[in-house]
Each structure stands twice: as structure tokens, then as C-alpha cells.
């Protein structure tokens, strides 16, 4: 039997947030607000996802002129697959929690 992936709760939160709109480019601060993670937790996760080829990033021109470009992120295919796996794996756990609650 394959062992469960060693992924922290915070990483699962980030993956879930990125998976809600897999094609959309997301910004660091928006992700921090959505996941309620501090920058000191969020960025190491983003960096590691990027290092492992699960996240792509690029500088995006701002919507409002005169503002500097922002670094944006979205899941790669491999990242989206991992996020899907995580969501599938956590669904039974959530159901069990809801039942016991």
C-alpha cells in the first residue's frame, strides 16, 4: 500500500486555494488572505511548490496603470494533479469529522 503524502495542513490550504481557479493567476497577498496564512508560512510553501515544479510563476502587469508588476502564481498540471489528490484524500476525512461532530 502506498504511504500517504507528507503534506502539511498549511500546504493543503494553499493547494486548495490555488485549485479553486486552476487557470487563474493568483497573487501572494491574496493567497495569504484567503488561506489566513502569514507571509512567513505562505512563501516557503510557494517556493517549495515552485522548486518541485508544482507551481509556475510570472510577473504580471497590473490592472491599474502606474502600479508595479506583481508576481503571480498558478498550479502546473502536476501541481493540479497533486491538489486534486489531496482534495480527494481529505474528503472522506472531512465527512468522518462531520459525522462524529
Amino acid at each position: 500500500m502506498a504511504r500517504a503524502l507528507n503534506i502539511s495542513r498549511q500546504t493543503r490550504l494553499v493547494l486548495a486555494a490555488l485549485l479553486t481557479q486552476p487557470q487563474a493567476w493568483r497573487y501572494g497577498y491574496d493567497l495569504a488572505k484567503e488561506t489566513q496564512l502569514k507571509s512567513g508560512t505562505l512563501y516557503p510553501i510557494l517556493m517549495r511548490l515552485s522548486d518541485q515544479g508544482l507551481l509556475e510563476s510570472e510577473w504580471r502587469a497590473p490592472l491599474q496603470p502606474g502600479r508595479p508588476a506583481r508576481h503571480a502564481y498558478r498550479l502546473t498540471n502536476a501541481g493540479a494533479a497533486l491538489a486534486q489528490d489531496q482534495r480527494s484524500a481529505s474528503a472522506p476525512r472531512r465527512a468522518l469529522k462531520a459525522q462524529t461532530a
Partner: protein
Amino acid sequence: MRRLADHLMFFAVRIASDRRRTWAMAMQRELQDADDPLSWAAGCLLTLLIERLQPMQTLVTAARWFVAAVTAAYAAFHFKMAWNGAMVLMGGPDWYYDKLIAWGHPDQAEGYQQAQPFIFAYMLLIGITHLGAAIFLVRWRPKAFYAFLAVAAVMVLAFTGLRVIPFQAGPLALLAAAACVLALMNRKSPPLATA
């Protein structure tokens, strides 16, 4: 508050490694939108500082191996002494006892002989605990290392309390210091996904 956050962020960008420069600039850009800029900047600074310290892992590993080698040598010495003690307990010659008699200290020789089983047990236990600590130091299993270290400390204190041996603070202090330093420096991020 905003100015302090800007200063922190400026410092964070300055210390960022070349590999993380883009990330540092990304964090700096996001600071403009942050509701709590100080907290944001502090988190970014911590992240980039830890990233900067990552190349020091080689140094940390070398230090760990060095301390482990010293600890293993200390364990080997105690195993040798335990072996000698076992030979004496089984009726072998005891040069130290003979020396004490020859030097005119029959009382000390008597006390030494009575303490032989305890000395043997101490040598064996200290050998085992230090060897365990050395192994888990090299393999870097912190909990197991700390456990062996704690048992070694208890053994030293217990046998010192029983007056079997004089207090040996040196090797334990070396191990304890190594434990603290290595724990501090080993703040490496775990792999994200390991099957």
C-alpha cells in the same frame, strides 16, 4: 509602522540569496497591499533569512559528524572499560586493585573491589547510550538523539549520586551543546511530498 516595515523589507531583499531574489522582490511588491505591513515584512524577512542559511547545511552536517565521531570514540572507550570490568568480575587480573594495594591503600582497594559491578554497569550503559547518541546524531533522528542524551545524563547523575564515579561533565556538556546548536541550525524545511 509602514516605514519600519519598508526598512525590514528592504533588509530582507538585501539578504536574499540570488536564487530567491525574484521571490524577495515579489514579497516586497505585495507589501504595498498588506493590511498589516509589519507582520508581512517580518514574515518575509524570516523566510529569506532561513533560505539564506540553507547552504550552511553542509557545515551543520560536518559538525554533526565530528561530534558523533567524538561521541562514538567516547563510547568505544567505555565499552573497552566495560570489557576489562567483565574480565575482572570473571576472576581476571585487576591491575588497578593490585596498584592500590602496592601503594598502601587497602581501604580504597576494598571499596574499589566492592564497586566493581557498578563500575561495569556504568561503563556498559554509558557506552550504549553514547553509541546510540552518535548513531542518531549521524542519521539525524533528533528525538532518538535527545532520548539517548537524556538517558546518558540520568546515568551520569545516578552513578555520581551513588559515588561510583566522579562527575563527568565534559562529554555530556559537549553533547548537550551540540544538541542545542544542531537543533537551532537544523531548521530545514521538510520535503513537500515524499511518498
